[in-house]
């Protein structure tokens, strides 16, 4: 959308713009060069590394060993599946939590708008590792949160649906998913806020005036108009969540290991570079395919 607007005003742009055609390229060059050398090229070396055989001491030879991808999948498919499931669940939860907050700040907060925005953004500036450590305290067995949850039989419920293994909250699927939701929530709130803030409140009044119930107003007016924010927010939440392993390690157990963790340790501890590279490449392909299908179905290709 924004693209066409720029292009159409382009015809009326001052002539110096059109005459000095090298200017945009000069502006783009350094940044794009950086991305090509340190983002695109590494993808090539990653793919290449995955198809090599050898070891750290004797060096590697390119053998076009495609088989490693099958081995990687055979061995680690549960971690892939788990990553996608956890990240997907966390994304849905984050959307459910972020929507009312973003809506409230954008449409209802009045003069408190800026303060609330600051409170949303500020935690984001604090090291998220420290905040994740804080969750270990909050969810620990000795604290009232777990004790109340036990008293109210919430722990039993979580155990029944398989989100926890015993009557603790920490070191469980529940804790990992909760941590992922918490950590990437600002990435969901901000794009949602941006698109909800643009929503003209008179549209909501108009819908009410035309006999729409609050729920119908939401379904037919608010939600469709906030879709760009929903798409951007879900992507910004799902993508990093799928590759994350910090929450899984700090809040989970060996039963909750995510694929990021496997890649990390294969690269840095096991030093099996070809397998690690293959694992990494599979994750990239999976995410890119999912994202492009999702973006196409959502119909908003203009995300920037």
């Amino acid at each position: 959308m924004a693209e066409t607007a720029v292009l159409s005003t382009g015809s009326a742009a001052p002539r110096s713009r059109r005459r000095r055609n090298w200017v945009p390229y000069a502006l783009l060059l350094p940044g794009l060069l950086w991305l090509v050398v340190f983002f695109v090229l590494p993808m090539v070396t990653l793919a290449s590394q995955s198809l090599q055989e050898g070891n750290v001491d004797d060096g590697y030879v390119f053998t076009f060993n495609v088989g490693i991808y099958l081995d990687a999948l055979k061995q680690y498919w549960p971690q892939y599946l788990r990553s996608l499931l956890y990240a997907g669940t966390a994304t849905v939860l984050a959307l459910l939590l972020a929507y009312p907050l973003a809506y409230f700040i954008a449409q209802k907060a009045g003069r408190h708008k800026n303060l609330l925005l600051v409170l949303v953004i500020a935690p984001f500036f604090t090291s998220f590792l420290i905040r994740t450590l804080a969750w270990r305290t909050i969810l620990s067995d000795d604290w009232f949160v777990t004790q109340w949850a036990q008293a109210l039989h919430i722990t039993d419920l979580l155990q029944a649906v398989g989100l926890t293994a015993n009557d603790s909250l920490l070191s469980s699927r529940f804790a990992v998913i909760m941590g992922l939701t918490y950590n990437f929530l600002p990435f969901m709130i901000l794009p949602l806020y941006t698109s909800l803030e643009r929503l003209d409140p008179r549209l909501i009044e108009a819908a009410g005036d035309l006999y729409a119930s609050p729920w119908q107003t939401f379904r037919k007016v608010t939600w469709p108009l906030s879709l760009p924010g929903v798409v951007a927010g879900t992507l910004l939440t799902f993508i990093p969540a799928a590759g994350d392993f910090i929450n899984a390690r700090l809040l989970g157990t060996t039963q909750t290991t995510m694929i990021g963790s496997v890649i990390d340790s294969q690269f840095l501890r096991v030093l099996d570079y070809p397998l690690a590279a293959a694992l990494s490449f599979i994750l990239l392909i999976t995410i890119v395919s999912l994202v492009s299908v999702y973006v196409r179905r959502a119909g908003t290709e203009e995300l920037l």
Partner: protein
Amino acid sequence: MMDRQEKGDLSLVALTKSFATFTAVHPLDLTIPQGSFFALLGPSGCGKTTTLRMIAGLEEPSGGRIHIGDADITGTKAHQRNVNTVFQSYALFPHMTVLDNVMFGLRRRGDKQARAKADDILELVQLGQVAGKKPTQLSGGMQQRVALARALVNRPDVLLLDEPLGALDLKLRRQMQMELKRIQQEVGLTFIHVTHDQEEAMTMADSIAVMNTGRIEQLGDPATLYEQPRSTFVANFLGQSNLVRARVNPGGTDHIVTVRVHDTDLEMAREHLPEGVDDVWLGVRPEKLRLGEAGGPNHLRGIVRDVSFSGVATQYSVEMPWGQELIVVQQNDGTARAALGETVSVSWAAHHGFALDASQDAEAGAELVDDHG
């Protein structure tokens, strides 16, 4: 031609602008005398804004020259021209105060008296008391005057106004029209005013060029344009016109000819008849028509189909025997009135009629008039 020109006249010579798919301005020749208030009038897309932007240096002409006095400024850039613009959206710098906005141009040229000049001009537009405020804190009318001051303070050879009053409400617009005219007379600079509002152009300008599809349809002072339009476009775009099909009768006197409309002969002034044309549109302005027979020697009878009262005047729609409806605007001065369905006479004087070549579309320009004025 050139030697007769005053020192600061603006002249456009065969000025052209073509885009990839269409020609916005066909070769245009125009000389605007120094110190005049000139209006470029036309519907949106007629090429008037493109012409203005070429004069400002914001758009590169595809051909032709632009002169100010003897200097050819065609090849110079916007920032090198002593031409300033009051933009339609004002384009005030939101991060600067009113005073800084006004001093912007002077500072670029290193004017030592920038502050004093800015103070003077803000006084002239009656904004001295808001010099320290940001433009967004001002009302639309005040912003408009800041934009004017910011351009005027540079004492440009030519001041360009791009629909400067378009964003103001009717009352404020009327007031600003008067004020612009006063300021122009006070500073004596050349003003070129682009507008789609015919009433605004006629109120303010010394002369008007009516533009349509990239060409000037007619150039002249407001009264001449209104009383003697030379095309159906001008007749319809500047005010309303009743245009009826007529055939010129042979003969007549030096001053008066008769034309035949259906089975009635009507008189008109010979000087209002284009040469060498027999099939014409006979035009009469609605306010020149009178209900009853007192208006003049020309009479047509018809049935009143619509009456709308607007305070000062009442507008009647009178259906002619051949089906066409004539618009009659009657001052509410207590004289003739008519009721719906009544059969009435419509009359007018011979010199109020004008004739246009019948090969033109009678509706040209009519659909483009909006109610801004």
